[in-house]
């Protein structure tokens, strides 16, 4: 054996190298698809959150909803007297904390006439 062939003697690599490489490439492909999918999923999630977000609350409606009974039952108060406004609009008085302010729940809001005119 010459010096050179002893120094640079060929060594066999461990078996199964190609199968291992395929596995590693597959792992890389999977991690890469996650890297692509994550931002896309974040965008979709943000779009869903924005689309189901409730509309800004109307202050009048907020007042109505703050009535405990209305809020808890989602119904008109049983003791409330219903008045018919113009064009058969139902007006339901709702408890107000300020005695100088009268609050009404108007059914068919688009058709209701101002309460002062009744």
């Amino acid at each position, binding site marked *: *054996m*010459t*010096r*050179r062939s*002893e*120094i*640079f003697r*060929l*060594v*066999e*690599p*461990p078996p199964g*190298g*190609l199968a*291992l*490489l*395929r596995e*590693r*490439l597959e792992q*890389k492909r999977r991690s890469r698809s996650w890297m692509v999918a994550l931002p896309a999923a974040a965008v979709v999630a943000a779009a869903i959150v924005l689309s189901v977000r409730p509309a800004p609350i109307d202050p009048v409606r907020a007042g109505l909803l703050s009535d405990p009974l209305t809020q808890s039952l989602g119904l008109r108060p049983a003791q409330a007297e219903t008045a018919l406004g113009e064009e058969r609009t139902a007006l339901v008085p709702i408890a107000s904390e300020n005695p100088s302010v009268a609050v009404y729940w108007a059914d068919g809001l688009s058709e209701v006439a101002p309460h002062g005119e009744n």
Partner: protein
Amino acid sequence: MAPNPSSRDAPLDQPALEALYRRLEKPLFNAVHRWLWDSTEARDVVQEAFVKLWGMAERVQPATVEPLVWRLALNAAAHRRRRRKVWQWLTLEALSDRAAAGKPADEALSDHQREAAIRRAVDELPDKLKRVILMCEFSGLGYAEIARTLGIPEGTVASRRNAALKKLEERLGPILEDGQLDEEAS
């Protein structure tokens, strides 16, 4: 025959990468093995080079793939070697190696000791000489391709190769059997 432009410009797909791996696994493994002296780790480095190559597959031209994978593998091997040296220094693992290095060269050597002497001689080669001599020995590439791969002039490849062989000769001359290291020159 002129190369087919469509195949020359085609991106590196998995079958092409696997074919390249089959062809280069052994030479790359042998070069990297002279850095790390550990089969499992050497294979890991070769695979790491191919995985990195796969990551850049869309940007790589088939004509430059082979030099690129050599560069990736040699850089990874050198990097690991440096990291391991730091670790050995920190954990004092290298003490036994340093003790063995002090033995006289002309002492009758067992196979194991001869192997250790070769390792030490190759390990002691400066990085730039080692890259050249290992590529010359294992890659099957010509000086021009090696020069392109390492980013050095062609003449430097020849001079570094000679310098590396001379250093090995100096260190291993008294230990190994007779015969010129630079067989091509003789």
